[in-house]
């Protein structure tokens, strides 16, 4: 047993492949046999991934989900930003440059509208909660965009660490909400073509959530959603602590 643990410890990434493989096999079995393929296997697998992420945090108190448990640390490496971004770029293989170019304007427009929707509604909810100072309002509104825009904005404006932590929490909840709700609402909102996926990536923005949500909806749409969503965080980091903060300051000071 000691030898096996040694092998597992030394080959984390390989163990990660094995774990995700087993999880996928189980999820596809559940999808086919228990749910009559009504929910795609990959959607179940991503959801179960989130459950494992919760359990990991519950048992270890760490911040990296299941990968905080020593023998599962390879899952964290496999799901880390390097492999995630590399695999997202590879999905461009299935995308057509012409289609991207044709929907480019819609994609860019949706980016701006998306950031506006999330920032404004985030600020309004925080305001309704009783928060009045513009720095905290701006940080929380930025957190409603993504869990990166929140802390970047908070740090730039000198927000308190509680407010920054709150903005990260809000951004994480958003990622999870987009992951879970996208496959449920996709048909209803007309998310079924490359052009609409590009607009969707711009509106929702969280690249992890958009990518995971589209993967569970229709993997063919992933590259189109990802290509716009990846600009969202950068654009958010640009305008939340500058333009949006100035506007809030004008209103609240």
């Amino acid at each position: 047993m000691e030898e096996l643990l040694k092998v597992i410890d030394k080959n984390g990434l390989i163990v990660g492949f094995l774990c995700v493989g087993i999880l996928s096999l189980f999820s596809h079995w559940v999808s086919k046999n228990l749910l009559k393929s009504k929910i795609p296997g990959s959607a179940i697998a991503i959801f179960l991934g989130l459950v494992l992420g919760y359990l990991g945090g519950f048992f270890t108190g760490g911040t990296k989900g299941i990968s905080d448990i020593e023998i599962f640390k390879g899952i964290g490496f496999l799901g880390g930003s390097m492999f995630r971004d590399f695999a997202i770029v590879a999905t461009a293989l299935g995308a057509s440059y012409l289609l991207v170019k044709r929907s480019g304007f819609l994609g860019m427009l949706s980016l701006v509208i998306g950031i506006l929707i999330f920032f404004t509604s985030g600020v309004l909810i925080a305001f309704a909660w009783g928060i009045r100072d513009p720095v905290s309002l701006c940080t929380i509104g930025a957190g409603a965009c993504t869990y990166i825009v929140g802390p970047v904005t908070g740090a730039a404006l000198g927000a308190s660490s509680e407010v920054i932590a709150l903005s990260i929490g809000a951004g994480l909840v958003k990622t999870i909400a987009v992951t879970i709700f996208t496959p449920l609402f996709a048909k209803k909102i007309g998310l079924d073509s490359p052009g609409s996926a590009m607009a969707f990536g711009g509106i929702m923005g969280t690249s992890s959530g958009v990518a995971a949500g589209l993967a569970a909806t229709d993997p063919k749409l992933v590259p189109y959603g990802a290509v716009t969503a990846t600009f969202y965080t950068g654009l958010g980091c640009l305008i939340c602590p500058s333009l949006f903060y100035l506007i809030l300051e004008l209103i609240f000071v």
Partner: protein
Amino acid sequence: MIIYGLALLSVSFILGQWIGELLGKLLGINANVGGVGFSMLILMVLKEVFERKGWWKGDLVLGIDFWNKMYIPVVIAMAASLNVKSAISSGNLALLVGIIPVFFGFAFFPVLLKNFKQ
């Protein structure tokens, strides 16, 4: 050779991330602006060029297609290593700010499509 495809994917990735970092620096923010998006655009353009030259075939494509297909497993691993516990327990305000705007997004999405679809 499979490594040619992998190298092509890697060069697109590195160049795109580099542009993203440079753009972030240029705009004076401490973030990568669209690095992944630029990488994808570079790969799409390279694909067009290679197809025209007749180089886009066989093992070269397999090298990229492997990672294309690894995408969902990577996302599953990502979901499993998110800080889900802290997201759920970071307080009611974080939950509201995280969820309610998502519904606004879903509600507004069909309006945007209707008005701007080509």
